[in-house]
């Protein structure tokens, strides 16, 4: 008898180039089209071919917040995947593999798990179609309707002709038939979906889409993982969206081009990862000093330096906060969900234009590169605020950097008669005249500093209020930002569920809530202090080593977060890791502050050497 669950996870593991994207992404998309909620996270390494890749696809009848903690079904496209993950497949689950390529030793197969080796050559006569055949077998085990998957096969191969479509469909059917004849139905299955056709995208696609919706018409970039998919999305859609997309020679040129385009009046954006952002640094201050609106997306990956290009981390907050010399107004936004990737990118453009300053939008690999179902994006009522723009001279001399109550001076765009001015990176007066040589005018310098910095007071009012999610009277508050938010929500839900069912005296029972600010600069210090003062116990969960958000909170509120859980192994937090740690804190309620870290278990032997590993001759890409 198979048990029916509200969700299940399939991992597709293999070497880069094994066709994981084709099968894994199609499976995720097919599930979305069949009405399930989907979360697909691809754990990969910096190699085009070879190297190890594992796509984690979690499918749910309700929203799935993360890629989860484990799997029930493993589609192993190489022996390495079996070595790594087989032991984690629970009873009722299955391991599917291509019997022609490798054998699975019986001692590798856990109790109650089926190992189904397809004789791919015999079945379909072509090893290249192993992934499609394995998918057919998977569908059979899961008892899912394969209509949506087959539809995707048709779409994917349509360009290659009817013949190719037919062979792929037949490979799928043969895989299914083999499983029907030689395997038991899957012991773990998912309940029926609501049948609603769901949309699926990557976080980066929604940032890019948000930019286009906001009216971004100039995009520049230098390729850098994990920001490159924004460049590709922008380029692919450039003609449809009317956006000029420019790959530049380096990130210095990238931001300077965007600033040039913005000076001419066009909404401009660029995106990069930490290393590229370091090169952009000087131009961030340039935008602030010349009061040129611009949006910069920083998709964090594991640093420092070249670091681990294909792995996630949240260790660039201090870089964003500190970017560029001097004091100047800048805004740092950190979306936490797909809907926020979209809506906060739009907000970023509006704030940039209204306050004529750089807006830095921080994301990370885990948020940007995963594929997830989403709903509820408003694509018809998009708020567009371009700020104050002068369209004609009014007889008075035009003062581009006029000292105003809000610090914002109405902007004139090149081409407007009668309002010419110079935007200078040197300090200047309200007319734009450079005063950097006038050492006798400290009062003008002070006045211009105050004019610019004043914007921050007004920006602050437009940013979201800090809020707690979950029960107000929680025993533990989980604190995080960016992609970690989703993990915290899942952990909170699980812990509170556990607390409810344990009513009447379980040891771990305790209520949990979440605090995850999404506007990180300027920071609502006072409001955050009032909110956190009421929390019983606090735990900051961050994918970095030093706890950068916790340090920012301390700096801005004077409050020290009690407990810290860090992760810097390149993989995102798994909900179980947070749940276990929270449970321990709820139980022991330590008086002293604690700092702990967790590492993901990739099933590698302790003496694993990348030199001896398959795929070590892979072409590296950064």
């Amino acid at each position, binding site marked *: 008898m198979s048990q029916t669950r509200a969700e299940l996870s399939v991992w597709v593991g293999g070497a880069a180039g094994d066709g994981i994207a084709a099968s894994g992404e199609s499976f995720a998309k097919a599930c979305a089209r069949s009405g399930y909620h989907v979360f697909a996270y691809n754990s990969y390494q910096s190699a085009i071919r070879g190297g190890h890749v594992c796509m984690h696809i979690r499918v749910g009848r309700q929203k799935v917040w993360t890629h989860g903690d484990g799997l029930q079904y493993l589609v192993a496209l190489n022996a390495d995947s079996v070595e790594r993950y087989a032991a984690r497949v629970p009873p009722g689950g299955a391991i599917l593999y291509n019997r022609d390529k490798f054998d699975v030793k019986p001692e590798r197969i856990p109790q109650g798990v089926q190992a189904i080796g397809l004789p791919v050559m015999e079945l379909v006569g072509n090893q290249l179609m192993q992934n499609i055949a394995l998918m057919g077998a998977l569908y059979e085990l899961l008892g899912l309707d394969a209509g949506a998957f087959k539809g995707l096969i048709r779409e994917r191969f349509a360009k290659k002709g009817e013949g190719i479509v037919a062979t792929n469909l037949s490979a799928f059917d043969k895989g299914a038939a083999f499983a029907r004849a030689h395997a038991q139905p899957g012991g773990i299955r998912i309940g029926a979906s609501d049948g609603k056709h769901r949309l699926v995208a990557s976080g980066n696609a929604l940032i890019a889409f948000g930019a286009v919706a906001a009216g971004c018409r100039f995009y520049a970039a230098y390729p850098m993982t994990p920001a490159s998919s924004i460049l590709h999305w922008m380029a692919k859609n450039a003609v449809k969206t*009317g956006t000029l997309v420019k790959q530049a020679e*380096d990130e210095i040129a990238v931001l300077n081009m965007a600033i040039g*385009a913005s000076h001419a009046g066009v909404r401009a954006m660029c995106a990069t990862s930490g290393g590229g952002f370091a090169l952009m640094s000087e131009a961030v201050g340039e935008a602030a000093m010349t009061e040129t609106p611009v949006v910069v997306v920083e998709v964090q990956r594991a640093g420092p330096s070249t670091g681990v290009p294909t792995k996630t981390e949240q260790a660039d907050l201090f870089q964003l906060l500190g970017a560029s010399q001097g004091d100047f107004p800048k805004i740092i936004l950190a979306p936490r969900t797909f809907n926020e990737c979209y809506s906060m990118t739009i907000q970023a453009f509006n704030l940039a234009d209204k306050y004529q300053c750089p807006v830095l939008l921080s994301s990370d690999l885990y948020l940007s590169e995963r594929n997830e179902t989403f709903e509820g994006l408003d694509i018809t009522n998009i708020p567009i605020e371009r700020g104050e723009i002068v369209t004609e001279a009014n007889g008075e001399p035009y003062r581009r950097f006029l000292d105003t109550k809000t610090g914002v001076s109405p902007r004139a765009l090149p081409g407007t008669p009668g309002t010419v001015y110079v935007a*200078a990176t040197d300090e200047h007066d309200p007319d734009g005249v450079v005063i950097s040589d006038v050492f006798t005018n400290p009062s003008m310098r002070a006045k211009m500093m105050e004019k610019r910095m004043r914007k921050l007071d007004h920006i602050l009012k437009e940013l979201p209020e800090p809020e707690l999610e979950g029960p107000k009277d929680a025993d533990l508050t989980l604190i995080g930002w960016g992609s970690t938010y989703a993990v915290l929500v899942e952990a909170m839900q699980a812990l509170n569920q556990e607390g409810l069912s344990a009513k009447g005296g379980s040891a771990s029972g305790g209520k949990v809530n979440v605090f995850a600010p999404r506007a990180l600069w300027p920071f609502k210090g006072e409001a955050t202090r009032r909110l956190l003062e009421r929390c019983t116990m606090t735990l900051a969960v961050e994918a970095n080593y030093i706890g950068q958000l916790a340090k920012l909170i301390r700096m801005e509120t004077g409050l020290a977060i009690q407990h810290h859980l860090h992760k810097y192994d390149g993989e995102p937090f798994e909900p179980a890791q947070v749940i276990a740690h929270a449970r321990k804190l709820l139980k022991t309620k330590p008086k002293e502050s604690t700092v702990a870290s967790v590492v993901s278990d990739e099933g590698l032997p302790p003496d694993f050497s990348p030199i001896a590993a398959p795929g070590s001759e892979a072409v590296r890409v950064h």
Partner: protein
Amino acid sequence: MSAQAAEISPQEYKTDEHPIWCPGCGDFGVLASLYQSLAALKIHSKDLVVVSGIGCSGRTPGFVKSYGFHVVHGRVLPVSLGVKLANPKLTVIGVGGDGDGFAIGGGHIAHAVRRNFDVAYLVMDNATYGLTKGQYSPTAPKGFMAGSTPYGNIEKPINPLAMLIGYGATFVARGYSGKPRELADLITRAIEHKGFAFMDIISPCITFYNTYKVIPPQLAEVPKDHDATSRTRAFELALREDKVYLGVFYQTQEPTFEEGVAQVIKAAQASAPPRLDEIFAEFA
């Protein structure tokens, strides 16, 4: 050039700001020639963007009525490209020093040239870092003595003209600030040129590297019979060391970057917003 207006006097491009340059600085001559060229081409201030880097030369936008942009050190070319692509109707002139252009910003030149976007890039070349008090620059000769090279410069200078011809710039010329009339003519041709126009303008720094005595005797006009359409001839002329030649070394016509992306630019400037619902369909 686009956006023509009625007669404009060179004086009209002057701003109220007075150049802070040292008396006798070559940059005054360049500025005067620039006013002449703008007037000759009747370019309206509102349609002009003068982008400059940092340095004494970088101060130029402050003295020219235009939507100037005094950017950070070395980034004249990427900012100019951004402006030009965002609004191709604007006349974009980039100005800056030899340090700004060939040292810190040197990496951008090859790529700006490859794109052949429509800009006149005027390097005010004094073979030194004027603003930071006279260190050696990429065009300073061997043996150059200054604060950072107290034992004399041991690097050989770059040859800007040969470099730009080598990169494939579609207009390459040299002028001298001490010959303002000829210089104005050359700047006019550079602005008129459709595509990437480069000018190396010898503009002595009277304070830190006074070459007013040594330069003039070396100067010569580009020979009358020079074939400026030949890249090989241009290269040969650029490599000659007998004289410092003034004039147009090379000029050719190639499609500009703006023409290359005209379709997207047209779409970008169309007022009709993109159909978000159509794009949205790809997520289904």
